[in-house]
């Protein structure tokens, strides 16, 4: 599939990859390319650099997705009906919205929002970030403001967790487990287990914290039906052809290993892999000349060029290695190769250049 078709036909693109490969920038560039092709795109980032967050207008942690202003969109070559919005995941906010919309009564919602365990839950429950990302995704996929959602995930060791976070967090939120902690339910064996956990908790925490925890679990438990239904819907949707997983990698061995590991896992889980993005490749530079001091150059310049020459030769070799690497990736699946951009390019220029490579304007 060409990126053109990918960006025109998918409802959701998930980018995954090791830390430091430029995944967030690639996600933003994909979003921009799709918006330039006339789609209404939302890019959801998890941990963007401050500079990229500023470029996307989400540096102040906005509550809702932010539509890039018309003048900026125009500068980026996005014209109606195309549009580009961005949002930075805020687990606590997503979670608060869930509490407000799914609690049985407003009083229950208020008690839960006020519970000290709940107030720290996103910092404390491993996987809560991913769980809320899925919940937010559920909302955005229902929202007819967007034709395409692009989701940037945490670095890939964690991205795998993103895929099973619903099971893991769901496991904790599973009534069969935390129900053990809420007294007065079930038969003899269950009560015995509950009593044991209660004694252990009192010994470890003290009574006050145990009560907070019990209140939290009892109230949060009432939200579970709705929450888990949303999670299951998104998980099922992730396996449909409307979704594409992009495996972003750099030329370094570790990043490639992560991408291959991820591809394997995705296939085993039945997730549609759209292809690889090889970022920061020097391949397009392979045919450049080596530097040569001009006739009549100063002594200093001639020395400098002489010092530069071995660096240039190494760079040439790297460029050819990257070219070969691109070919090897193509044997494994659809591959898009993005160039290493010149230092000092602003994020806006960088996004434009990458968007051009991903979907050349016709």
């Amino acid at each position: 599939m060409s990126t053109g078709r990918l960006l025109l036909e998918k409802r959701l693109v998930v980018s995954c990859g090791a830390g430091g490969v430029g995944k967030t920038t690639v996600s933003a560039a994909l979003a921009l390319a799709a918006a330039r092709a006339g789609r209404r795109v939302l890019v959801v980032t998890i941990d963007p650099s401050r500079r990229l967050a500023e470029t996307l207008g989400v540096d102040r942690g906005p509550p809702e997705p932010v539509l890039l202003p018309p003048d900026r969109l125009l500068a980026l070559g996005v014209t109606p009906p195309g549009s580009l919005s961005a949002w930075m995941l805020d687990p606590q906010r997503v979670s608060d919205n869930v509490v407000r919309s799914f609690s049985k009564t407003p009083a229950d919602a208020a008690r839960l929002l006020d519970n000290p365990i709940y107030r720290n839950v996103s910092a404390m429950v491993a996987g809560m970030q991913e769980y809320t990302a899925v919940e937010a995704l559920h909302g955005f996929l229902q929202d007819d403001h967007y034709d395409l959602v692009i989701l940037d995930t945490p670095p890939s060791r964690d991205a795998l967790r993103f895929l099973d976070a619903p099971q893991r967090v769901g496991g904790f939120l599973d009534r069969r487990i935390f129900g053990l902690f809420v007294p007065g339910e079930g038969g003899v064996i269950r009560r015995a287990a509950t009593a044991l956990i209660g004694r252990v908790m009192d010994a470890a925490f003290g009574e006050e914290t145990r009560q907070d925890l019990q209140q939290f679990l009892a109230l949060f438990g009432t939200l579970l039906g709705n929450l888990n239904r949303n999670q299951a819907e998104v998980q099922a949707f992730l396996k449909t052809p409307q979704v594409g997983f992009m495996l972003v990698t750099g030329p370094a061995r570790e990043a490639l290993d992560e991408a291959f590991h991820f591809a394997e896992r995705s296939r085993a889980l039945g997730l549609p892999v759209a292809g690889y993005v090889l970022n920061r490749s020097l391949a397009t530079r392979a045919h450049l000349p080596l530097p040569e001091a001009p006739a009549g150059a100063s002594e200093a310049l001639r020395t400098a060029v002489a010092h530069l020459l071995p660096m240039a030769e190494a760079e040439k070799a790297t460029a050819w290695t990257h070219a070969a690497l691109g070919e090897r990736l193509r044997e494994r699946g659809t591959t898009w190769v993005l160039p290493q951009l010149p230092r000092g390019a602003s994020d806006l220029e960088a996004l434009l250049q990458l968007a051009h490579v991903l979907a050349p304007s016709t």
Partner: protein
Amino acid sequence: MPFSSRRIHLLTGKGGVGRTTVTAALARATAHQGRRVLLLEIGDPDEGASPLARLFGREHLPIEPTALEPGLFGARLWAPVGHEGFLKAHLPGGALISAALRSKALARFLVAAPSFHEMGLFYHLLMLLEAKPAWDQVILDMPATGHALALTGLPEVLLRLIPRGPIAKAMRRGQAYMNDPTQADAWVVALPEQLPVTEAIELMAGLRATGMTVGGVLLNRMPADPFNATEQVELAGFMAGRAVHGEVAWGRLVDARIAAARLRAEEADLPILTLPEVPAEPDHALVGPLCEVLA
């Protein structure tokens, strides 16, 4: 070696900066000085082989400290070990302890309940810090930025929730180690580039906010700079707008100079060590050369 003064080093830094390799090199360099070193990682064996263990030719680091090389021991922090240790130390009476340790329901609950996983990791760390005979040096490879703050900030979060009781006491004890500037510090591994340096500066602010002492910065993969001042000026003019091989390397060099200078200006009192770029494939071949630099 600017590392030897404190017993506990946390190594942290964003993904892709080579933190794990630097951590392994530091551990080896410390062991070569004749100290008994414990190298720790936080890793979930379900997530595939551990990058740190791979540097020592293993799939995973074991839970029990195990010799990796002479004087260098490795172990993985593992929440259930911390849970068990805590229960043994704090539950009243042997009957309750053995009932608790036998209970599958409790085990499931501990794995799943909020923050118990992190608490378990933290308590396991505390057990190793207090183990006899004491380790001369404990070096912890901290996973990506957000988690590092989560773990160093954990005692504070938990103490807000649980101000009293045995867990609170254990958290305070752990916090006392981590926040004692004579015992523990955090080193930030970063690349000599603009954005990573900005992120390193933000990370240090975050660490200090949790009460950690920042020991210093390790600027990894510093490109070799063969040019004197005059040559730099001449070459800058020559390279402007020229599409040749060497352009990327030159750009990196300029960027590295600016980034390192900015870091030195902002953190004037902090040790900033640079580690050279060493071409090595595969990655574990890097540990040796970096170890020599750190020694």
